[in-house]
């Protein structure tokens, strides 16, 4: 079955440092979504990538979709304490009527 893996599972950074989380799928994805979940909260949609090699930016966040559409990354520049939370990728492959979430990367930002 389809699997979406994320690394690292945890990341502690000093405020101002950069952060990257990686998402890898065992199958080619039709699209990938990224969500952020604050501690004790619910997932909130950040972005969706659809095209091979696509790069999108949201202020300090940069999202990439791999050329083979089997991997993706989220990079945060100059982290702030407001970036704390767990970042999930979620992908759908081919004609599958399902969305598989990765295990998430929990980011801690040390002031």
């Amino acid at each position, binding site marked *: 079955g389809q699997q979406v893996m994320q690394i690292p599972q945890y990341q502690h950074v000093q405020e101002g440092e950069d952060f990257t989380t990686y998402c890898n799928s065992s199958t080619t994805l039709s699209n990938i979504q990224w969500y952020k979940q604050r501690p004790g909260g*619910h997932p909130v949609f950040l972005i969706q990538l659809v095209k091979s090699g696509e790069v999108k930016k949201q202020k300090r966040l940069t999202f990439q979709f791999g050329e083979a559409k089997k991997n993706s990354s989220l990079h945060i520049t100059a982290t702030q304490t407001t970036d704390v939370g767990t970042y999930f990728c979620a992908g759908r492959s081919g004609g599958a009527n399902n969305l598989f979430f990765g*295990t998430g990367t929990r980011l801690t930002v040390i002031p």
Partner: protein
Amino acid sequence: NAGVTQTPKFRILKIGQSMTLQCTQDMNHNYMYWYRQDPGMGLKLIYYSVGAGITDKGEVPNGYNVSRSTTEDFPLRLELAAPSQTSVYFCASSYGGRALIGSYEQYFGPGTRLTVT
């Protein structure tokens, strides 16, 4: 708009008991979903619906049932609760159209934290 609302926020069940988790959305979304999130894990899809009267199984449907009689409501029923169903349950909704699920942004409710002892 209230978005997606879920009740209750917390619940403790004894093994073998049953309960219904309520979910309502006011965004007129066709697609609705139920996920469970175990500690330190991602979300796993339990059931989904692409419109009133239409439901289908997700990745982990065993032990659960759903119904969708209206566009707004998508209750999740747990029959004969087991400790393995201890989890946080999230309901979500999205625009659908004719697309496969996972094609559009999903809006999540605040979650129901369920403990089965």
